[in-house]
């Protein structure tokens, strides 16, 4: 006798009409029924609107909550952005030689243990003859050069400059392979290089420390003493700046023949091989490896030490990555704590909000809000605030990183991924910290809630 009003969770419009006019219901009992999923979507959208309304009606509370989450997200985003920028700077710095250069040396640049050090020391030195053989036999190689380094004190008049990297190189193409360019003056000629003359090309730091910062053109032709011998400065290099506090401009290039005259062949040299393009790198490495193995007595057995180290610049990047990974984790972790604090702020304010709005919850329940409706409303409120806070935090974070980057001086990388992550994580924080207050609100007894003031 009564129309089946509660077939679906909600009244359809037709059934609403039935309510208005019971006669109509009997005619059109099946009515027009909306699908369950549509109803769910509508309910969610309505919950969203309800939440939006209540957030707009409580501007002070909303903005306080926002601040909590903005600070947390901004901290994480700025730290991540700065780290990404630093990483990028390191990567570009180390690859200034390009991915077209690799080296042959007696010892690898990174030695992990004493045992390794002993093993590598037993190897034969890499010599100028090795370099010549590589240049002769490696068809994929473009340019081959050698370099030897020593730390030395430079002197001019009564000035001293300690711990300068004195680098003996040949041929002059090594400047190019090293990624160095002349600022003022010139590089030595091949003839000068072979003759073992005492001439040098210095980095800008030498000017600062020995010549009181005199301009480069006034230093050309001046004398500087390296290992007690007088060298004539014929050129000054363009600055490369420093990396991790170590200046790359505290350097003096001298011809390799001169280097040998002073220091003998007492230490192994490093052979630099450059290929015309990255695609030839693998072939060139294979050829060089074959040449070197032949010269080391044909040890093809992988078990035995091949007697030399073949390395690209990637080893630095690998080392950098390993060394900094943990530091970054800790830094991001510390920044993430502020996000947790932000979450607690959200939870606290949501709890206050539930207490403050007990009456409102009572009214809503009295007129038909189910537990789920109240829960959804408070959760959506929490998530909306935190997602919005996350978005503002991401922008603030990028802004902060931009400022810091401008102060330190490195290029900034703004990644969409970290922005999405920032908003995503803060939304999750919103759900987690909103859950308990929302549950408390949903559980309130309507009679008690209505009675509260």
């Amino acid at each position, binding site marked *: *006798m*009564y129309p089946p*009003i*509660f077939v679906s*969770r*909600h*009244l359809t*419009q037709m059934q*609403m009409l039935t*309510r*208005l006019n019971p006669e109509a219901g009997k005619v059109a009992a099946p009515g027009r029924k909306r699908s369950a999923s549509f*109803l769910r979507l*509508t*309910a969610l959208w*309505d919950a969203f609107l*309800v939440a939006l*309304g*209540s957030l707009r*009606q*409580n501007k002070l509370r909303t903005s306080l909550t926002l601040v909590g989450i903005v600070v947390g997200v901004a901290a994480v985003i700025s730290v991540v952005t700065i780290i990404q920028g630093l990483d990028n700077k390191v990567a570009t710095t180390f690859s200034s030689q390009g991915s077209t250069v690799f080296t042959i040396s007696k010892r690898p640049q990174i030695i992990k243990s004493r045992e390794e050090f002993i093993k590598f020391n037993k190897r034969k030195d890499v010599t100028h003859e090795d370099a010549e053989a590589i240049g002769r036999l490696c068809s994929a190689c473009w340019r081959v050069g050698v370099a030897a380094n020593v730390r030395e004190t430079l002197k001019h008049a009564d000035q001293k400059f300690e711990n300068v990297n004195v680098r003996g190189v040949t041929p002059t193409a090594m400047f190019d392979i090293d990624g160095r360019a002349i600022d003022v003056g010139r590089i030595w000629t091949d003839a000068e290089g072979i003759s073992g003359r005492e001439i040098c090309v210095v980095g800008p730091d030498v000017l600062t420390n020995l010549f009181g910062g005199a301009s480069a053109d006034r230093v050309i032709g001046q004398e500087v003493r390296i290992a007690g011998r007088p060298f004539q400065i014929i050129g000054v290099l363009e600055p490369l700046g420093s990396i991790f506090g170590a200046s790359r401009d505290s350097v003096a290039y001298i011809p390799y023949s001169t280097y040998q005259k002073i220091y003998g062949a007492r230490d192994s040299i490093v052979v630099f091989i450059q290929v015309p393009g990255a695609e030839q790198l693998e072939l060139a490495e294979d050829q060089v490896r074959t040449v070197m193995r032949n010269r080391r007595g044909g040890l093809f057995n992988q078990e035995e030490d091949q007697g030399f180290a073949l390395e690209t610049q990637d080893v630095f990047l690998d080392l950098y990555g390993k060394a900094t990974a943990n530091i970054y984790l800790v830094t991001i972790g510390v920044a993430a704590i502020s996000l947790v604090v932000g979450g607690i702020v959200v939870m606290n304010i949501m709890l206050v909000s539930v207490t403050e709005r007990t*009456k*409102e919850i*009572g*009214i*809503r*329940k*009295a*007129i*038909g*809000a*189910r*537990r*789920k*409706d109240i829960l959804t409303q408070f959760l959506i409120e929490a998530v909306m605030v935190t997602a919005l806070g996350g978005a503002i935090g991401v922008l603030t974070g990028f802004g902060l990183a931009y400022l810091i980057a401008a102060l330190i001086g490195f290029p900034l990388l703004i990644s969409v991924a970290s922005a999405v992550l920032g908003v995503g994580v803060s939304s999750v924080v919103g759900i987690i910290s909103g859950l308990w207050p929302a549950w408390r609100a949903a559980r309130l007894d*309507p*009679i008690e809630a*209505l009675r509260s003031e």
Partner: protein
Amino acid sequence: MSDATLVSTPETPAVLPAEPRPPQPHDSNSLISMRDIWKTYQMGSEQVHALHGVSFDIPKGEYIAIIGPSGSGKSTLMNLIGCLDTPSKGEYWLNAKNVSEMDDDELARIRNQEVGFVFQTFNLLARATALHNVELPLIYGGIGSAKRHEMATQALTAVDLADRITHRPNELSGGQRQRVAIARALVNHPSILLADEPTGALDTHTSMEIMDLFERLHGEGNTIIVVTHEPDIAARAHRVVSIRDGLIEKDEKIR
């Protein structure tokens, strides 16, 4: 006890509800049918019976006042009728549904669809407009926004507030607020309009306006239940049920 209170059928003879009697099947012709309703609260070690064995019926379209001094159990009865609470014992049938065995969410649904509340202190959302307040039950009823807007506007027009739909409660007079609350109560076309001291916060003149409105709504076919302690207000109803000490003391048709 008037003849109209219980519809006499061979199965359910009209007897005084206050008298102890064996449980009767609910009267399917009544909109509200309460059978031997008990409500017991635990106060420390003591059990307090707010209602002990109340039974009555309300047919569709009746205008009834429930009257009684404070502590009589009338608030408890109102909470039960409004489905805000369930009885400790007994059966409550509302619009052919046994409400007494429902869980929280089912009760919420019944409140949404079958009950329109009007409170003494209006209980409007302070920061929401009149229109939004009236739309609220429809939101929980799952009505789409266009339809909702239309229905809420209609309901506000029906209480002569068509020109106040964008006003917030604090921009309205007490009488206007109560009319917004009445529009909200009626917007879902509930089975009953349940008013708890609807004029308790209003001056005499405004009170009379609200009572006139109730009369009009009753004339339009609505079932109205007014809970009050004021004899003047109760006198406007067509039937008065007096509660004292958790029992129905008197049940009389006055009009």
